[in-house]
């Protein structure tokens, strides 16, 4: 179910404060954040965020198209590097059988 319009988009209060400060000063340092559930508002465009993916902070530069999405959508929590090849797997763990 989608969020009630009455409430407006969810943005972490602290994050909003940091964004407001950057807009005011014109500084463009990446903002480190754990708030993956915060919605990208139009104010965010042009800023860079370091969004936590559970392990690292992943660099996300906000463009206009990203407005309305959540920050977490841009920092993948799972990294799939493909299935192991059978031969490689045998080399990696040879003493099993």
């Amino acid at each position, binding site marked *: 179910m989608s969020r009630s319009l009455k409430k407006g988009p969810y943005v972490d209060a602290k994050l909003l404060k940091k964004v407001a400060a950057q807009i005011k000063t014109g500084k463009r340092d990446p903002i480190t954040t754990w708030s993956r559930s915060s919605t990208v508002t139009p104010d965010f465009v042009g800023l860079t965020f370091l969004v936590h993916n559970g392990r690292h902070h992943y660099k996300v530069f906000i463009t206009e*198209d990203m407005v309305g999405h959540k920050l977490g*959508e841009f920092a993948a929590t799972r990294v799939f590097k493909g299935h192991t090849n*059978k031969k490689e797997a045998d080399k990696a763990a040879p003493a099993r059988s």
Partner: protein
Amino acid sequence: MPRLIGVDIPPQKRLEIALTYIYGIGRDTARKICDSTGLDRAMRSRDLNEDQIAMLATYIQKAYPVEGQLRRQVAANINRLREIGCYRGMRHRRGLPVRGQRTRTNARTRKGPRKTVAGKKSVKGMK
């Protein structure tokens, strides 16, 4: 055989059904179109006269995105997701289900025909 919006040639069916042969128009939209243009839903589309066809065509194109325009719109939406590097875009790029469905089994519509991997345990075996 009446031609509506380019290539669509709905046959001797009720108008409300014939209109659904146009990409982007389903049963509900077809009904709304009939009602708001004042045409009888039950009439056969072969009974439409030239004026009615022209009127229908202009009305539909004004009120709804259909055919090529709609296809382009959908493709553009997907392309946007692909380009902004979000999760849904990733799933589109990889050809996997986008809306959180399971992929351990099923998901064949998105993944295409099965690619059998030697040594992989069956679903029964995984339990």
